[in-house]
């Protein structure tokens, strides 16, 4: 029944590649009546097998469009790839035909979304939806796929999977739906899982469970994860590297340790100041970032963050900063990231665990120990080749 397309990603057929996934100066623009919306404007990062990349930013910072671009799910028109490339195992996804992209989607790169209820088709049983990928990509029959769906639901911790597989999405609770989404995404054992705010629509306690589940499954299957969130706390515990985005542009990129212990960009500082902290006095208010993100059609001339930045200088308004290397594999787009005195403004947290605990406030993440030094030391490896990614002219600072 199901036609299985020839697998164009059998490793032996591929030229050598350095990273599992590479985004190279990706620009995704939307042509609208009001003008060009630069939703993603020059984003670069790399992802290796088994690693987790956190992509952090406010609403409208281009995180989701970046994620959708990787799977080729950006509606075109009005969207278009203005520049750059996305390479999966060294192959350009942008140059790929739609038929070949269908082989990638769900099979090599899977995605889960923010609202698990609206992301599941209300008229089909959960089992059918979870197993559907196996029918398309592995040529299973519908019955075999449902049998496999039972295993998958069991794997993501849904009780009574034999019965639950026959349920419809509306009969599941919110947390169970997201578990089912994860089961669906992992059905074909993809190399990359993109999670677009997977916990935003869930209760705080359920959020922690889902994150734990994702970490557990990542360890088991070695899946690389791109975790998109507006919540630094979510990625603190999970990510190897973090990319901070603002108004469609990357503003800071580094290892999780670097981002949390020595953040360079005032926007990252702002994000950190808006996380509730356990050690703060109760009467000490959080410090939100003032103002709203700029319109992506009409960005300020210089730094996109200049209008909201408390440390803004005239230079910031005149010239657009580029991502530049500040220290080992740590990039920032702020003009002043090299200035030691300027960096004294940074809010310094004691530990990343504290941020995680403060944001989720469950305590489970803090002692999960996932962020021990071992994990972070590993991440040093990935960054070796990163220098070439941000070939902005401004390394001289």
């Amino acid at each position, binding site marked *: 029944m199901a036609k299985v397309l020839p697998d164009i990603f059998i490793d032996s057929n591929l030229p050598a590649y350095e990273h599992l996934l590479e985004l190279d100066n990706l620009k995704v623009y939307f042509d609208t009546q009001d003008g060009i919306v630069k939703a993603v404007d020059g984003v670069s990062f790399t992802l290796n097998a088994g690693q987790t990349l956190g992509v952090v930013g406010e609403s409208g910072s281009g995180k989701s469009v970046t994620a959708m671009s990787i799977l080729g799910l950006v509606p075109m028109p009005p969207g278009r790839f203005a520049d750059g490339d996305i390479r999966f195992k060294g192959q350009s996804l942008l140059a790929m035909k739609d038929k070949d992209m269908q082989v990638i*989607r*769900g*099979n090599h790169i899977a995605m889960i*979304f923010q609202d698990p209820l*609206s*992301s599941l088709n*209300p008229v089909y*049983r959960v089992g059918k939806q979870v197993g559907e*990928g196996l029918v398309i990509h592995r040529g299973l029959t519908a019955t075999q796929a449902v049998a496999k769906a039972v295993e998958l639901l069991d794997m993501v911790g849904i009780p009574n999977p034999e019965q639950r597989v026959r349920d419809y999405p509306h009969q599941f609770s919110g947390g169970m739906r997201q578990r089912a989404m994860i089961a669906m995404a992992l059905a074909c054992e993809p190399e990359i899982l993109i999670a677009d705010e997977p916990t935003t629509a869930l209760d705080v306690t359920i959020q922690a469970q889902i994150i734990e589940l994702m970490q557990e499954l990542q360890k088991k299957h070695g899946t690389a994860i791109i975790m998109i969130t507006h919540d630094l706390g979510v990625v603190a515990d999970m990510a190897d590297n973090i990319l901070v985005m603002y108004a469609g542009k990357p503003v800071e990129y580094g290892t999780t340790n670097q981002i949390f212990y020595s953040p360079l960009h005032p926007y990252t500082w702002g994000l950190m100041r808006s996380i509730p902290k356990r050690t703060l006095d109760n009467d000490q208010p959080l410090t939100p970032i003032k103002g709203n993100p700029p319109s992506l059609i009409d960005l300020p001339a210089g730094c996109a963050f200049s209008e909201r930045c408390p440390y803004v200088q005239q230079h910031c308004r005149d010239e657009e900063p580029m991502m530049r290397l500040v220290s080992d594999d740590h990039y920032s787009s702020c003009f002043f990231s090299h200035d030691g005195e300027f960096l004294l403004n940074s809010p310094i947290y004691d530990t990343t665990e504290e941020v995680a605990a403060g944001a989720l406030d469950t305590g489970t993440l803090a002692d999960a120990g996932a962020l021990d030094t071992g994990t972070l030391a590993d991440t040093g490896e990935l960054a070796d080749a990163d220098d070439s990614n941000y070939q902005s002219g401004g390394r001289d600072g």
Partner: protein
Amino acid sequence: MQFVPVFIGVTLLLFAMRAIVPGDPIRMIAGEKSIPETTYRIIVERNHLDQPIYIQYGYYMGDLFHGDFGHSYQKGRDVIEIFADKFPSTASLALGAILIEIVVGISAGVISAVKKYSFIDMLLTLSTSILVSMPVFWLGMLLQSIFGIWLKNLTGGAISLPISGSGGPISAYPTFLHYILPSVTLASVSLAFTARIMRSQLLEVLSQDYIRTAYAKGLSKRDVILKHALKNAMIPVITFIGIDFGTMMSGAILTESVFSWPGVGREIYLAIIQRDWPIVMGGVVIIVIIVMTINLLIDISYALFDPRIRYGSKKAD
């Protein structure tokens, strides 16, 4: 159980109308000629027409309760017998029309939605707008003159579609060709509506998150639309087509009159002209029964399309 109040309401309304409408049904039996006074009195008494209207209503409902739909003034036959004769014509015409409506209407709607804002979408939108605003009887006559007369004359009779009523004897069982023009006419307006509802529903569904999920799974566009989107978009379309089918089954008075189609609608139309009340009454009663049965079936069919609508479901959530 909305059946009972609707039924009583409809029959009461009919009796009220028959009291207002001028014309003596009994005198009309004889047409131009006059009826002897004694015969007239006998017929009037036999049909309780000398009684006050509410007594007549009582008699009628009593008979109905016993399964007696009454007796035609003019034809001297039982009403139920007359409709049993006419119903197959109407039902087959309705079936033909509904098939056209489903196939053409749904496909046009799907194509429009998938190729949103394309040339073909605009063409379909334009033609459905024209169809919607075209009166059925006028379209019927137009088709008759084009295919039955104009094309026939132009090609010396080589191209012509036989139309019942346009000359020549009408066979009791029309051949397949006889169905084409009446079914197209009957389907026209509803077809256009079906296409429009289908288009808007599908567009709405295609913007849903679960469609994105389906794409993210690696489904082709075709599978996403046919397997994931269509089933979700169907309920309003089914509702419309179902109600429409009920209307068609109860006789399309305009279409049947234009094409002299020997169906229920035309029978009722003729009976109204002749003030043959038992046929009008019986016809409407039968229509009410058919429409309400079909509505019930539509309601039940919702559950097939949307599991969130399951009646008396065991699992409460």
